């Protein structure tokens, strides 16, 4: 029996050495280690052998089985490695091909700007309050020291709603978010620190610098001891965060009926850096917002005692800001809903 085993061994190992794919290896395994293999047959027939022979042949056969099994494992490993090495070479990809496209959604540039400004003011403790687009004459005008026939009404051409019999007074599309300030002063108790983003409307024909609907953020702070220096500080911080540290800011006197003193804040022109160009009307400055110390009559009308509380208020036009930042020269693009425009932000 032993010579038979030796022959089996040398044949099996020889065959094993020349195998180079998994299928051949499997058939080799069946041949030499399978249930019907010679070795298995020998191992099964050990019982029929005389004792002495059974011991020697048995030991040798088991040795051989272990050896073949080890050989099989090593070969399997070697084949797997060869496979991987081969695969890596064959399966190279052209990494310059574009990836699988995902649809990309974007917020409207105005939403992005509103979010950015709300965040800046939130970090200074301003909460958000909103009001209706359709407003009573009272909150848009009367409450803000703009009675009937006031010349300031001419500067804010108004879209009026068709009057219903049941309406207690004239309804309009608010011309500024300052209308929300009037509501806030009436309905909230000091201390107050809020901003009021929203849509506003004007009775105006569209052109490159005018649209009938646009966005504003008004803000108001009411507390004891609020000063104009605080107003300047707050607005300066907004300008610094939004336009950057190095952008110069200017505060000048201006008139709005609902504030006194009135302020206009301008920044150094982003196009010419203050040298004067068409965008800034050669002045080197671009008006960004109107502000001031809330007029005592406005506070009083809203039920806040101006002898106790002081207040500042401001209003920022939104469209202008991305127009300046990105060099957009036509305000109508924001409302054209043209994907070629919107995709750029």
């Amino acid at each position: 029996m032993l010579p038979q085993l030796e022959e089996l061994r040398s044949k099996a190992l020889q065959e094993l050495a020349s195998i180079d794919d998994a299928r051949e290896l499997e058939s080799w395994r069946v041949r030499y280690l399978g249930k019907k293999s010679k070795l298995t047959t020998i191992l099964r027939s050990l019982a029929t052998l005389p004792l002495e022979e059974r011991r020697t042949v048995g030991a040798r056969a088991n040795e051989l089985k272990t050896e073949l099994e080890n050989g099989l494992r090593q070969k399997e490993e070697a084949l797997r490695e060869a496979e991987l090495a081969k695969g890596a070479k064959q399966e190279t990809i052209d990494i310059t091909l574009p990836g699988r496209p995902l649809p990309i959604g974007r917020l409207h540039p105005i939403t992005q700007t509103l979010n950015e400004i709300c965040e800046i003011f939130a970090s200074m403790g301003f909460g958000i309050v909103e009001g209706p687009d359709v407003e009573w004459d009272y909150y848009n005008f009367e409450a803000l020291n703009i009675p009937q026939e006031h010349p300031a009404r001419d500067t804010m051409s108004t879209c009026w709603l068709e009057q219903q019999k049941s309406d207690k007074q004239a309804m309009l599309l608010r011309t500024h978010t300052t209308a929300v300030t009037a509501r806030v002063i009436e309905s909230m108790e000091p201390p107050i620190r809020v901003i009021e983003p929203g849509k506003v409307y004007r009775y105006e024909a569209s052109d490159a610098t005018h649209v009938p609907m646009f966005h504003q953020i008004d803000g108001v702070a009411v507390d004891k001891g609020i000063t104009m220096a605080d107003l300047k500080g707050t607005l300066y911080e907004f300008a610094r965060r939004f336009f950057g540290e190095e952008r110069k800011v200017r505060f000048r006197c201006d008139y709005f009926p609902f504030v006194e003193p009135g302020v206009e804040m301008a920044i150094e022109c982003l196009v010419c850096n203050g040298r004067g160009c068409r965008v800034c009307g050669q002045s080197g400055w671009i008006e960004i917002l109107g502000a001031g110390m809330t007029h005592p009559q406005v506070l009083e009308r809203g039920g806040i005692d101006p002898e106790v509380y002081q207040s500042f208020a401001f209003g920022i036009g939104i469209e202008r800001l991305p127009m300046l930042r990105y060099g957009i020269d036509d305000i109508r693009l924001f409302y054209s809903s043209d994907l070629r425009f919107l995709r750029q932000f």
Partner: protein
Amino acid sequence: MKVPLKWLKEYIDLTLPPAELAEKLTMAGIEAGGIEVIGERWDNVVVGEIVAVKPHPNADRLRLPTVDLGTEQQTVVCGAPNLRVGDKVAFARVGAELIDGHTGQLTRLKPAKIRGVESSGMVCSEKELGISDNHQEILVLPPDAPVGAPLAEYLGDVILDLEVTPNRADCLSIIGIAREVAALTGQSLHPPKVSYEESPPPIAEQVAIEIADPDLCPRYCASLITGVKIAESPQWMQRRLLACGMRPINNIVDITNYVMLELGQPLHAFDYEKIMGRKIIVRRAEEGEIIVSLDGVERTLSHDMLVIADEVRAVAIAGVMGGANSEVTEETTSILLEAASFNPASIHHTSRSLSLPSEASMRFERGIRPELTIPALKRATQLMAELAGGKVAQGVADVYPGRRKPKPIRLSAEKTKALLGVEFSLEQIVSTLTSLGFECQPASADEIQVTPPYWRGDIQQAVDLIEEVARIAGYDKIPTTMLSQPLPRQNPAPIIGLRQKIRNSLIGYGFQEVITYSLTSLEMLRKLRPEAQPLEPTPLRLANPMTADQEYLRPTLRANLLAILEANRRHEEDGIRLFELGKVYLVREGDLPDEPEVLCGLLSGTREEKSWHGDGSLLDFFDAKGVVEGLLAKLGVAASFEPSDDASFHPLKQAAIVIGDRRLGVVGELHPKVAAAFDISEPAYLFEIRVTDLLPFTLEHKMFQPIPRFPPTVRDIALIVDNGVSHQQVVDIIKGFSLVKQVTIFDVYSGKQVPEGKKSLAYRITYQSPTHTLTDEEVNKVQEQILRKLSQQLGATLRG
């Protein structure tokens, strides 16, 4: 308000260069919109006098004027017809920059030989100097023009274009600006001196004045000038009027305009002979009363308008425009000159109603103080006596029912500091206010009592005075500090956060946000209905729409979104995914409209961008529904979908989005007729969710669910059911068993191997118990029960 600096210099010593002056005024609240320089390029142009004119030897149309330039005489060739010996003209030396009369180009003057005659220089037309378009004649200067003087010195000027805010009626005048400059620069003011001779009889014997409606006219003053000669006003006056944007008419009208520009008080000159009954009555117009205004237009007035009338008829619309019936004409010899004060709101109302804005009404609307009438009246009367050769009747007529005592205002340094956040001493405050014409009296140790000058009608309270102090000092004197008060509590409306979440989810799903106008047209809204159904309820309409396509407040976002799709399709090949989250406007009886917020999304085209991977498959109903499901899952809201009958959608391919027991939206394919109405030529899918109504469901309190400790068992089943059986019916039954943790459909099939009229639905069912590991037997038992129930209730069989 245009301010020629030469005119301004009559009342104030100007030392600042124009740009610095403009800057100072701008910072103090009167914005300089522009600085126009007249004669900027007149370097080589001087005043000359024509001393001789000879014919040109070779040309009939040309002549040879000799011009005395003070230091020398020059003879040049000239084609103008108005060469007259003794006239003062503008003479350009060689090297002067002129505008070519024919080409309009700026050119430098060179010596030339014209038809054989040397010409070194030129007598200029207004066009060549850039003053006007007149190139027919040469410019003839007034006789007082100094020979040899540079023209820029004599005729040049700098004009500031100032934007005066509505509160500063006083700054709609040269003197008003001069007062500002005086306060800003510390220079002193020289107002015009007024004096003239009067002759009997007194005015009171020649005209009677009655104010019938003193609420609209607090003061009415008049003077009478007889024996005037109507002619052109002097050149200097015409030039100033032109520089300020007003057209010269005749000496009388020009004087009224000149004094209005100088002092801010609008004036009106009547032909005295045309005032019937020698009586002026200031009264409300009769309802429907008719007057032909100076521009020749017949105006129908209403009872809320004020007129100036004589005994018989209205002769002027008060403060707005004179009447043709009392107009000053070439035959006029006697002038009744009016200086009055009217109610600003009434003038505003009248000029708006009649669409007649004028320089006068603009000033009255902003509030002309009654105190200004007399100084302006006297100034104009003086000029009429001087320039139109008139005799002034004794005295002035002055009816003043609206006299009011000025109310002094109290102010302290402490209050000033409290508002501005920076200290100004009481002395500084007094000095600033005094420079602006305010009277300051000490009221107590640390308070002053301030009386504003009559022209500052805008000053009423302490804060107004504080602004004066701050703006004259300059706002840059105010420090910048941060709010130091404790942070107030905030109660942000929950919709703000919800909106943010929705927007962020949708951009994550690849949707582009759009913002469209809140205004739309009925035509657009009607396109949303395949049949011509009436729009119920009618959307809110503007009383004054600017254009027909922006007439109604939108009751839905759909129309705007659909309109965008086709416009973008013209340049977009790939799939389009759009959304808008915004308000719609719904009528509410007797109140402001309801403004709920709505989300509307639109998908159309290929699912994937064209690429080397894509299969070019098209977006469909289930893409739209998937977005809705994903969004609601993210918001933690459980929704179901039910059959729906929204007219804008395909009748068989739409589902109502049901949350709780409320229908809060719809998803589906656009109705083909609606698509056609919007020129959409491909299937489009729309979803709409009423965000405001959704809000309460997103606020429900969530509870943590423990992560299951025992492993799940997963079984797949394939069922054969009738086509009429819905997935939802199957799922509802399976989910009715408590051990079922999850049911997922992973295949829907009909066709080969499935009987006609039936379909195969394949489900993966996950069984799990919170208390123990399930045995096969347990799972088998439940699954058998499920199959039995499916079979009993839906006729479902297992697919072999």
